[in-house]
């Protein structure tokens, strides 16, 4: 599902869809993101309300076991849940609740959704954040090196292997890693984020334990992300190698390291950062799968539980939170992008 990335990055790099920049820098971008967030939040509100049936259907249906005969009693229940109010005022109170951080009440866990989200989000952020960081570091340096040694056996082998790897879904990758490194060769733990009932002697032990449990999920998520960015970096760097400024820099007698990272590597940064922005969404999506495989206590297992129990308030809360995370990450990348590219800044 990540093959879009490269194409996207390529398209963005070529700039054939350049939107007209507004005078006020960033305002347009921020506006687009705010609009998207509003559209998603509104969708979450209206979607269940346009589905057939409503929460009090059973109380009003004479054939149902939960039928309440007394009309006054029924009205009282509807008023208690605010379901007797017009849609617009329901929408308004939904928005004001969201602003206060009130995501409603989880049906299956009988806990406020916000409490559950607060407990789970840090683990997902740890997993996705470190996966993005690790995959970026690896793909950037390996990509530049592969471009520098293009056509060699190692370069060609990497391309073939990684082109196939990036098509493999995260849950398949996670299952394979789990089977290999936790079952067949039990080096790493099979599940969880910490040793159960552990008491740590020092904070260092705690960090070590968390990292030990993080290793496999992180690897499962990183491989796909790194493969994509590797191909982007490699191809961009190759396209810079024939440029005049490279020839000049070489003629000046600059060191190989300067040539590699300062002159060609920096030019690979732009498509790379574009890819990073698109990948933020993929990483969050992928972490849902990886967490479910490794029973990692993040959003993924929470979403899975919400789906299994058809716990809609919890699912909606998860969705809104994940959407906010992805949108913020994307926005941050786009603003960085403007900083990185003097041409975008100037316009």
């Amino acid at each position: 599902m990540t093959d879009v990335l490269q194409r996207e990055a390529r398209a963005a790099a070529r700039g054939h869809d350049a939107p007209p920049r507004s005078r006020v820098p960033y305002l347009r971008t921020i506006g687009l993101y705010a609009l998207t967030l509003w559209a998603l939040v509104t969708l979450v509100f209206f979607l269940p309300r346009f589905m057939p049936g409503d929460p009090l259907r059973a109380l009003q249906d004479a054939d149902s076991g939960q039928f309440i005969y007394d009309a006054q009693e029924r009205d009282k229940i509807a008023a208690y849940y605010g379901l007797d109010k017009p849609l617009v005022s329901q929408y308004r109170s939904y928005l004001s609740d969201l602003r206060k951080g009130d995501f409603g009440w989880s049906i299956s866990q009988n806990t406020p959704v916000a409490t559950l989200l607060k407990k789970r989000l840090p683990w997902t952020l740890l997993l996705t954040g470190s996966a993005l960081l690790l995959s970026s570091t690896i793909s950037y340096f390996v990509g530049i090196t592969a471009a520098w040694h293009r056509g060699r056996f190692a370069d060609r082998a990497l391309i073939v292997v990684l082109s196939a790897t990036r098509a493999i879904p995260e849950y398949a990758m996670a299952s394979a890693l789990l089977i290999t490194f936790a079952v067949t060769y039990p080096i790493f733990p099979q599940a969880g984020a910490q040793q159960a009932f552990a008491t740590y002697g020092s904070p260092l032990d705690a960090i070590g334990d968390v990292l030990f449990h993080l290793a496999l999920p992180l690897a499962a998520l990183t491989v796909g992300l790194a493969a994509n960015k590797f191909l982007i970096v490699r191809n961009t760097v190759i396209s810079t190698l024939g440029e005049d400024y490279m020839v000049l820099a070489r003629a000046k007698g600059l060191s190989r390291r300067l040539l590699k990272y300062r002159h060609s590597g920096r030019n690979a940064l732009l498509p790379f950062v574009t890819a990073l922005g698109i990948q933020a969404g993929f990483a969050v999506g992928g972490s849902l799968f990886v967490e479910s495989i490794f029973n990692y206590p993040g959003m993924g297992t929470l979403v899975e539980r919400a789906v299994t129990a058809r716990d809609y308030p919890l699912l909606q809360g998860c969705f809104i939170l994940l959407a906010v995370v992805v949108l913020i990450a994307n926005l941050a990348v786009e603003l960085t992008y403007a900083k990185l590219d003097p041409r975008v800044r100037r316009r």
Partner: protein
Amino acid sequence: MTATTVTRAPAPGQGSPRGTYVAGAIGGLIIAFYVVLVLFGSQLAPFRATELAGPSLAPPGGATRLGTNLLGQDILSQLILGARASLTVALCAGAGTVVLGGIVGVVAGWFPGWCDAVLMRVTDLVLIVPKLPLLLLVGALTGGSVLGLSLVISLLFWPNAARILRSQVLSLRTRTHVRAATGFGAGTWHQLRRHILPDLTLLAIAEFIPAAGRAVGLQAGLAFLGVGDPTLPSWGAMIRDAVAFRALFITSAWKWWLAPPVIALVALIVGITLLGAAAERRLSPRLVRHAR
């Protein structure tokens, strides 16, 4: 993404063209194999997907050639019958994505000005929507039938195809034969039908294949997380059942319960990817232009 720049495009094709085509042929063979499974699945499968075929967690061998799951259902039969869900979603969601993207791309490309501007802003908006969480939510609310999922996938993933097809329409508009036809007084409909759409077909096919591959991964992933038609055998649901069994890795049942659906799924997705790479190389004008 709205961030743009004008840096040189990365060199497109990787590996030799010949290698790409050989890989594409292999991909085509893999897909053909799955198509046979779908067409003759009910004859090929020794059992029905939910039928009690043997003892619980029987290892491979005997009547149940790939063993059974916790409920004693035949893995091989589930594997064969699960191909249908994957290929259906590949076909429907792939086609839906390209058709939606095509409509938006052609309209935006052919009518510049406010129409193009509005459509491209909508495209930007849909591009940044977090897709998997939204798919999960909508899928859980609507029940997640294969056709419903295909529709939602199409509604979320059309922007890529729209952008690529739009830029192709923009380039076609300026070709001499199209301008000549305009000079002879050809109407919009005639132009689109005779001059634009035929030239877009190959590009649309090149867009269809990766969209189909993505849809396969998404459908299985959603089924794995619990969004899907529970009556329909699917590889994602098999993986879900296997992983949900807590003692999976204490016994060696994962060898015949978890591994086969994962392998089947990865093989199909890799097959589609290989075919897609070959098709893109052959069909996409962008790459033909850049090919060295």
